[in-house]
């Protein structure tokens, strides 16, 4: 092998650039979507007197919430997939969101006047427990890449959900539970959503820990072998997922399938290079949530369809298409 | 005899099997050998009609495996893959008894019971015959599955790496059993083997598979040559005289 071909091969193998022009293009598109989000709405901000105040109180927070929750849930999905080495898992298919819901319910029942921070705290704690339970199950499953894993996760979620339902039924909170749980950006306004900013920490942390999380995902033996503290990484990963899921569930509600579709679509087009995929995962998460929210706001205007419904339908279609596409191959 | 004509299977643009044209003679043991990922298991699975092919056809004793009904084929050929799903609350004897299903449909006659006993004894499972499968070690379970497949009493028996979970002593005994099954009962046994030396000692024919195609086919005497083996396995191999036949030294 001559040195020139060796060098050529080496160049080809180097990691994709973190920032390139396509990413910039994606950023522009998403910014455009966000601008659309800022301008769509029933209230005509340009012509009325307090239009600017309306803008600041609802539109901006809503759009910011879109950005934060979209990125957070997409990242959580990615972290989960890294840790389980399974492409089908994400917080809504492992019971994590159901646990968060149970936590929320528990807090609302025992502390009816709970502030948003207290509610979040409860949701996060429960989400953490739930994710740990799921990982405990995973240790029993020897075939990590199996489709069995998400099936187990969903069964787990169903169990927790039945507990929540029982509790809610007994305490007469069932319909409210449905309302809180349904992800929607309708009620986002200034003064209420600020807690979402915490997820920025999660996003940054994912960037920092991405490689280590991948190694942890390959199993305890592999991780320990390369000097990684396996349990600590799993705890950190779980913590990140729990925080993101707990906070988003309390402020926005359940955003189904987001963590599932986004990392998979990104991997489908760009391969599995984690580092350079991360900004795309974030962007695509934001983009999809924004589009769904825009649809929800305009389709039966002046009423709104909650984003979780749109996401649920679109997510289901995309997921099914993903599975079924291979049959045409 | 087994005939493969123009068999091809494409997984994606990089990985493909074929085209394969091969004739495996009836009687005796034929070993499929080759490096990892060569396609030996895939070929075996296609012959055993567990996997479809893209083009070509495979005939086992004049029966086309793609068109003949599965339940007729079950009396002519049997196949055992490497990984086997097993259920709880199933004893060894019950598992081996399933081997009679193509003939009895699940209702075992006294004659069936005799046949079952015969193969359980043949593989030294007599003391274990009433144990549940999940109370056995991997190697013992392996033998139970082989017993089931032998109990099917088909002319052609296909085994995918049957020695995988067995230690040296049990591997030797298994190959001895297979050889006597081939001789005593006149079966044609096709085994995928990782260890070329077992092939050399026990097989009547060796078929070397590399990168999805057949690169060599012949008796052990013809195949066990330095240059041929080195080429097949991509590593220097030296063939030396052993106490019972030719041995490949590559360590």
């Amino acid at each position: 092998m001559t040195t020139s071909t060796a060098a050529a091969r080496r160049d080809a193998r180097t990691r994709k650039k973190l920032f390139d022009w396509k990413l910039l293009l994606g950023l522009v598109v998403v910014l455009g979507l966000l601008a659309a989000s800022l301008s769509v709405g029933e209230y005509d901000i340009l012509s009325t007197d307090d239009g600017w105040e309306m803008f600041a109180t609802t539109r901006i927070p809503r759009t910011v919430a879109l950005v934060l929750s979209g990125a957070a849930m997409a990242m959580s999905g990615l972290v989960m997939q890294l840790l389980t080495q399974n492409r089908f898992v994400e917080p809504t298919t492992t019971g994590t969101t159901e646990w968060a819901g149970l936590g929320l319910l528990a807090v609302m029942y025992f502390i009816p006047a709970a502030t948003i921070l207290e509610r979040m705290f409860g949701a996060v704690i429960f989400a953490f427990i739930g994710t740990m339970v799921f990982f405990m199950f995973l240790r029993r499953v020897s075939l990590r890449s199996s489709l069995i894993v998400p099936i187990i996760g969903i069964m787990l979620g169903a169990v927790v959900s039945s507990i929540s339902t029982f509790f809610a039924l007994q305490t007469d909170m069932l319909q409210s539970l449905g309302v809180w749980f349904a992800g929607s950006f309708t009620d986002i306004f200034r003064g209420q959503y600020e807690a979402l900013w915490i997820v920025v920490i999660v996003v940054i942390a994912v960037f920092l820990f991405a490689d280590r999380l991948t190694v942890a995902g390959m199993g305890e033996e592999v991780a320990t072998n390369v000097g990684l503290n396996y349990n600590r990484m799993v705890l950190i990963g779980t913590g990140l997922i729990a925080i993101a899921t707990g906070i988003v569930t309390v402020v926005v509600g359940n955003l189904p399938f987001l963590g599932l579709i986004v990392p998979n679509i990104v991997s489908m087009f760009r391969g599995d290079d984690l580092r350079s995929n991360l900004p795309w995962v974030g962007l695509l998460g934001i983009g999809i949530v924004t589009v769904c929210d825009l649809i929800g706001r305009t389709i039966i205007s002046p009423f709104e369809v909650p984003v979780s419904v749109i996401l649920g339908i679109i997510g289901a279609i995309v997921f099914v298409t993903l599975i079924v596409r291979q049959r045409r191959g | 005899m087994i005939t493969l004509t123009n068999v091809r299977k494409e997984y994606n643009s990089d990985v493909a099997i074929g085209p394969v044209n091969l004739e495996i003679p009836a009687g005796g043991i034929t070993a499929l050998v080759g490096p990892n990922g060569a396609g030996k298991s895939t070929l075996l699975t296609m012959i055993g009609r567990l996997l479809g092919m893209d083009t070509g056809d495979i005939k086992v004793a004049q029966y086309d495996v793609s068109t003949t009904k599965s339940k007729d084929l079950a009396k002519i050929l049997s196949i055992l893959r490497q990984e086997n799903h097993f259920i709880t609350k199933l004893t060894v004897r019950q598992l081996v008894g399933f081997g009679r299903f193509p003939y009895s449909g699940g209702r075992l006659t006294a004659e069936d019971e005799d046949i079952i006993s015969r193969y359980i004894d043949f593989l030294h499972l007599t003391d274990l015959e009433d144990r549940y499968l999940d109370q056995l070690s991997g190697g013992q379970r392996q033998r139970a599955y082989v017993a089931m497949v032998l109990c099917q009493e088909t002319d052609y028996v296909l085994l995918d790496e049957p020695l995988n979970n067995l230690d040296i002593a049990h591997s030797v005994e298994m190959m001895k059993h297979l050889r006597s099954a081939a001789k005593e009962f006149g079966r044609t046994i096709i085994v995928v083997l990782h260890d070329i030396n077992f092939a050399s000692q026990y097989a009547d024919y060796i078929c070397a598979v590399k990168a999805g195609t057949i690169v060599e086919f012949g008796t052990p005497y013809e195949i066990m040559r330095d240059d041929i083996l080195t080429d097949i396995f991509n590593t220097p191999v030296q063939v030396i005289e052993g106490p019972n036949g030719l041995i490949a030294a590559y360590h």
Partner: protein
Amino acid sequence: MDKNRYVENMVDESTAGGVENYLREESEDAARFERVEETWPDHATRPPAERRSGAFQSAAAARKYWIILALVGGFGLLFAFGLLAWDNPMPFGSETFWLIAERRADAVIAMLVVAVCQAVATVAFQTVTNNRIITPSIMGFESLYTAIHTSTVYFFGAVGLINARTLTTFLVQLALMVGLSLILYSWLLTGRHANMHAMLLVGIVIGGGLGSVSTFMQRMLTPSEFDILTARLFGSVNNADPAYYPIAIPLVIVATVLLYLNSRKLNIIALGRDTATNLGLNYKALAISTLVLISVLMAVSTALVGPMTFLGFLVATLAYQFADTYDHRYLFPMAAGIGFLVLAGAYFIMNHIFYAQGVVSIIIELVGGSVFLFVILRKGRL
């Protein structure tokens, strides 16, 4: 990365090597038995008369089965009678007594139907999917039921829901559920890339999507409409309308008998696709026909009383333990018996001892769900 192959890789690698035994293989006992043979013993034979393979491990195990089945059946009948006679204000044996008992009998019949449906469907489903951690409920039957009822209330109000209790509605529900599952099976289980797990996931996801839509509609209901809907959305034998029995019962009988007659083939299916094909079974045809029968049973049960997600799982798990055999000829009856015992017992205790009628199904869900968690965590193998 070839994006056209992405999904194929994604799904293929998840069923790599055809391995469906996903739980840890070696049990702790295995090491013990390894030492059983340090050397190969000479051919050992026993007198021919002793060596037979029955459905059970030994004669003692067979006896145990029949005793347990008798007990299960006995207690089931006891609870059934209790449901009919306990707290019956009329003197025993009088005409009015039997009138009241007849009305109660409707509920008991519903329990029997649901028990048989859920038990047989779950055992068969777990066999066909080679997976003992799931239940056919997650395939979307319940989501469809919820969606149908929610949209009825949404569009036609509470009145509409009450008026919809007709035989036609029942039949429409049945047709929808069975029809849609047929589409699912033919879509994903036929053709070259048939994949059982993919089908399961798709069923689950579609169920999830329907659930989203239902939840949305539910939040638009008035609280009183919501309450009426909720009563229907939780499985309860009080939802069952005896007018449906002439259709439901024959369907259940036919489906159950067909499944029972296929027991021997189901025993082989349990060994996995490759072994079953090796032994001459037409795996695909058998899997699909079994799934169709399962759909019929699940549709009848769900349309009759509503969702009962974990009952089938609970009953099947108990049946595997108590029956102590692999043979479906014995598993089906034991499962059905346990199912009836659980339902009748739960309703009897809740009605007459705790006076907490409304929550029976939820309690069963909780118990079933907890059994699920317990079994997985503890045993690692079902």
